[in-house]
């Protein structure tokens, strides 16, 4: 088991955003979390990545307790992510963005940076080469020196993924990675997600609204509603689950 969340609870004031959710992920799988708006999906991501600390419950990653660790420590442990509203370092170049993502992989040494010893320079060269590889992987190689902010929307999404992959994560969390894409771009993105898993061996967990994407690539799907996990299983299982249908079609059918 790569990720093991047990009975996670997160409250904001009176609102319980995540309610007693348990969730596990096997290595090298493609997973999705779906749910209506406000279901607590992003909050769940934030719990895993350490931006919020769960009020109750435990989170284990790769056999190690990560609850209470800082986001950068969790990243170092091997969980990387993208954001719902793209958060690139807008004024930096494309390749610099990827290099920042590599932070945990580099030996950060003040005196190395000041003295530029050969070891430091070699490391920089390696990092540069690896970043270029990653850009190649997501198809941005020829835009390496452009300023991130000037990229078209789809490219920004892909750059965010490249940046997230730069830290050699074991688990990649994608927060609505195809939001705002046209069908062709979505298809490209799906193949990218698959390649991430197949070529790089990275486990993927994504939040997605686009059912075509979700059903097309996910091996397991969990459904959140009102902060609770209401269903989990293969795409087919989830598709047929009455709770899910209810959650998506609204509660009007439920007798009051």
């Amino acid at each position, binding site marked *: 088991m790569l990720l093991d969340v047990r009975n996670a609870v997160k409250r904001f004031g009176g609102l319980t955003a995540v309610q007693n959710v348990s969730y596990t992920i096997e290595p090298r799988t493609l997973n999705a979390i779906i749910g209506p708006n406000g279901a607590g999906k992003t909050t769940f991501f934030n719990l895993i990545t350490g931006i919020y600390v769960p009020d109750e419950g435990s989170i284990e990653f790769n056999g190690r307790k990560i609850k209470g660790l800082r986001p950068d420590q969790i990243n170092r442990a091997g969980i990387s992510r993208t954001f719902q509203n793209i958060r690139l370092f807008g004024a930096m170049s494309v390749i610099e963005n990827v*290099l920042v993502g590599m932070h945990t992989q580099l030996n950060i040494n003040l005196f190395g940076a000041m003295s530029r010893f050969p070891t430091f320079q070699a490391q920089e060269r390696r990092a540069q080469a690896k970043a270029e590889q990653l850009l190649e992987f997501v198809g941005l190689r020829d835009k390496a020196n452009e300023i991130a902010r000037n990229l078209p929307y789809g490219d920004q999404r892909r750059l965010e993924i490249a940046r997230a992959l730069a830290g050699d994560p074991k688990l990649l969390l994608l927060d609505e990675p195809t939001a705002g894409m046209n069908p062709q771009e979505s298809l490209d993105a799906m193949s990218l997600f698959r390649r991430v898993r197949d070529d790089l061996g990275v486990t993927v967990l994504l939040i997605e609204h686009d059912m075509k994407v979700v059903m097309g690539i996910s091996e397991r799907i969990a459904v959140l509603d009102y902060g609770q996990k209401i269903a989990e299983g293969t795409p087919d299982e989830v598709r047929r689950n009455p709770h899910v249908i209810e959650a998506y079609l609204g509660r009007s059918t439920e007798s009051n």
Partner: protein
Amino acid sequence: MIQNAQPKANPDQMARRSAIFFAVLLAFAFLLMPWRNATSGPNTGMGLLRIGTEYGAFSLLIFLVPLAALAGFAAGFSQRIAPHSPTFFQIAARVGGAAGLIYVAVAMIYGLQTTGSVGGMLSVQGMGIWVTLFTAAGLIGLTYNPNVTFIIVWIGVSFFFVQGIRREMTLFPLWSSIAFPMLTISPFLVLSIKMPRAAQIALLVLVVCVLLPMVGIEDTFYLELIIQISIFAAMAIGLNIVIGFAGLLDLGYIAFFAVGAYLWGMFTSTAADTVFKTSNALASPDAFWLFLLLGVIAAGITGVLLGLPVLRLRGDYLAIVTLGFGEIIRILVSNLSNISSNPIRRVNLTNGAQGLPGIAHPILPQGLYDLVKSIAAAIGVPLNTQSSVEAVTLQLFFYFLVLTVGGIAVIIAARLDNSPIGRAWTAIREDEVAAVAMGVPRVRMKLLAFAMGASFAGAMGVIFAAKQSFVSPESFSFIQSIFILVIVIVGGMGSIRGVLLGAVVVTLLNLQVLKNFSLLINSLKNLDWVVPIINFPIRNWPSQLEPARYERLVFGVLLIVMMIYRPEGISPAKRRRMEMQEAADQTLEEAAAEGAPRPGMDKIE
């Protein structure tokens, strides 16, 4: 103006640009060069404006050439009036240059005549030879690279300009505050103009290690100015790490400077007996180099100590806390003169508001004094008294010391910026949440920024105390922190070159240009000058409005104007320039959407 020369500029444009500056600078040279000779005796000089003498008439003649070029340029520039004709400017520049050569030949002969020796080549009187060298280099440059011509002529002219003006001249304040800034910004011009790396380094070494010290030996005020510029520049580079790279607003930066200054001061002041109740200073002057290192470390640690509690804060909260911290350090040094329960017989650490007098400077080897003395004699500035030799040598020593330390600071800052650390800082500045999610340890990186920034100020503090030989809390007030902040912003936040340029501009403005303006008015007053046209005798200017009393006002106005017309700073970092550009573009779009006729007038965020 001509910095950021884009490689894309077309050759005609380059030639034109170069020609115009060439013409302007030659005009300056003609105007001012000969004055120097005027001092060797009454009416023996070749003063351009001594119309009636043969030289005067001659000079006036060749002065007209570049003037004609100028006029032609002004007329031809606007394409609506006449289509531009680059060949005209090239011709004008060549004619001007040729005229310059003739002029220079005359000057050279004159220089040799007056000194009568080849040794006078270096001397200020034999400047003709120098002029020849520079002009020839410039003209050669014109044939293959107008930019090189331009910069060589700029350096040459500004150097002679500085050398040529004398304290005795009535308008000395005016000339020196044009000439010296011209010379001090020349390294930036060298850096900003595209040319072979070797040429760049050669020109930089020429200006920084030869021309500026030469000027400084003759007039130590110039050395003082460069030393202060360098001290502020190194601090501004440190602050730039905190603000420009890591995006943390620090309003109490001067505190770290105080840490370094008091570190050296407390241990070597002659007041050490009141400080530590010993009869001798605790550290010998030889320990200076050790203390320079200790200053770096102590300030770095202080930076971490400040950083630890404030890292949770953002933006303006950080600003007020750092401001408070700066005040705390200042109040501490002014209060640590009494840390026992007996108010009168006190245990004294910093000598309070009295300040620490008699701080030691490092002892220099005797050979250095002799060397400086002989160099000075060689360039025609005999140092007669022992105290003047000492004064000049010390100033030169501190000049090269701050230059070295400042240079190291620049290199470190540049290397950090272009390293994983610098990238992490930029990432934190751009988007803290995303940076942390990418594994950047926020706290450690911010602490590092604080510590690095502080350590530069600590080193400069030690040097400052040794140079001033006296420190008191007055040097570390809030306004000083603001002064450094102004340097960073005016120069161009995030850009190392910009910050250096900012230090030059702001420090010169404060210490030289504004003061000289006051002095100029004063000397015009002494001369009973009457302002032409309005016929206003300047003597009647009320003393309540004496310019010396309103330097701050002028400084304030300049800040406002600067921020309005060039908010990204004089030489902005590429990233910043882009951000500003984007803001402007947005405004344009908005304006276009609103159908506003004049874009950029009414910006809405």
